[in-house]
């Protein structure tokens, strides 16, 4: 086995001699990775948004007026019995009325409504939003205690469906994109190798083994992958930060992913994917040429 250094030098010579083709492959790789990265960031943000809305969903149970403390306690025990309950909050009707009055202090609510119209309320937050519906239908059977239950049922269903759909299609799309990227990279690198088809043939004619011929090309692919994905990750990071900052300023309540470790995972992932694609692209292309 000749030294790795030999193959690295051969790869460097190859990259330099193919000049324009090298630049072309590099650009293709960087642009493909940029597109992939953009959609990855888009997907995680959409998923995050969906999660955000879904996590806001809560069940509000309005108690009947004629029940005792004890009824409430019993009901509380029932609720605690569901393993998807994250948090239970009691809102006393008097407190709720005070809060409401304060919120609308300008309108002098009391002038139109003399008696507190609000019921005692229990707010249930759950760990798994998909179980809301099932839970509600169970709770509704406690008619002696429960007057009404509000949980944004239709909305919940819609958002959950949308979120699920976005999640699946987002990742599906990214997988397709990854495949397309690989194909683009393979074909671009194949073009550069085709230009050197004669060279490869002559190498075979003077007794070079396949691996001897392959190594420099694979190293070239590695270098293309590292450089191309670094360029795309750097561009992606700066443009994402700029765009996210702008959106944050315009819509402060938009739950964007910002300064989160998931971003670093994505950047690192893109770098690794780009490098692997470069190596794989070169390997597949050179192997096809060697057939």
């Amino acid at each position, binding site marked *: 086995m*000749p030294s790795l250094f030999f193959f690295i030098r051969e790869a460097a010579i190859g990259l330099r001699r193919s000049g324009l083709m090298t630049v072309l492959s590099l650009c293709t790789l960087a642009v493909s990775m940029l597109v992939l990265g953009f959609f990855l960031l888009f997907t995680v943000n959409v998923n995050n948004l969906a999660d955000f809305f879904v996590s806001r969903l809560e069940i509000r149970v309005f108690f009947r007026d004629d029940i005792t403390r004890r009824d409430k306690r019993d009901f509380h025990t029932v609720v605690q019995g569901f393993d998807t309950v994250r948090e239970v909050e009691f809102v006393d009707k008097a407190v709720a009325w005070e809060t409401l009055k304060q919120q609308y202090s300008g309108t002098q609510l009391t002038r139109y409504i003399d008696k507190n119209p609000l019921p005692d309320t229990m707010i249930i937050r759950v760990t798994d939003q998909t179980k809301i519906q099932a839970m509600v239908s169970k709770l509704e059977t406690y008619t002696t205690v429960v007057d009404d239950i509000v949980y944004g049922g239709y909305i919940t269903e819609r958002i959950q469906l949308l979120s699920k759909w976005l999640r699946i299609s987002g990742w599906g799309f990214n997988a397709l994109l990854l495949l397309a990227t690989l194909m683009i990279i393979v074909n671009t690198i194949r073009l550069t190798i085709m230009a050197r088809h004669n060279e490869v043939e002559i190498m*075979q004619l003077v*007794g070079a083994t396949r691996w001897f011929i392959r190594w420099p090309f694979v190293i070239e692919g590695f270098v293309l992958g590292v450089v191309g994905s670094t360029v795309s990750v750097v561009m992606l990071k700066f443009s994402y930060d700029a765009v996210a900052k702008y959106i944050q300023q315009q819509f402060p309540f938009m739950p964007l992913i910002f300064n989160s470790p998931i971003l670093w995972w994505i950047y690192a992932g893109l770098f690794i994917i780009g490098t692997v694609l470069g190596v794989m692209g070169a390997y597949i292309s050179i192997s096809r040429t060697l057939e």
Partner: protein
Amino acid sequence: MIAIQSLSKLYDNDCYGLNDVSLAIDQGEFVFLVGPSGSGKTTLFNVLHGRERPSSGRAQVLAYELTRLLADQLPVLRRDVGMIFQDYKLLPKRTVYENIAFVLQVLHYKRRRIHQLVHQVLDLVGLTNKAHDYPRALSGGEQQRICIARAIVHQPRILLADEPTGNLDPDTAWDIMQLLGKINQRKTTIIVATHDWRIVNKMRRRVVRLMNGSVVSDTIMGHYA
């Protein structure tokens, strides 16, 4: 060394490149392969060099049975069988030095040894001063000599030379033949395909004549007339 029995090569276009050729060549022989254009000389070389698979018959070269050659064995065969190509096949983007050195790099020679051997062989073909030129900057005859240098630098046991003097003036052609004769004295088996009857007649070596893909004569100390 080389044992060929009833070897045929049928190309995809139903044209016989070789038709029932039988031939035996010993270690250290010097053989001229003659015949008109299209008689199958290059085809025979391509089979012996593993570029074309025979359609039928057997061909044993050194330890390799060519009809059953595995892909892994091909590079190893080619290290023992050097070939001077009719169309040179030099790497255009490498210098003369790099073209020759590549064969040795393939064989994992050390840099110092490569340097030494390449300069020796360049000296032998008289092109030391062209070491750092690219092939396209050389004349046809010079490229031919580089091709010879590349084919012999690793001292293969068999050397196939396809028209090695095709582009050379008579004097240089004769020099090249002398050179091949010298290499032959190192026990390298040499087969030369040529149209050059003057050289064949002057050298007085074994002559195998092909015609339409078949051997029509095989004479020791032969003539080409």
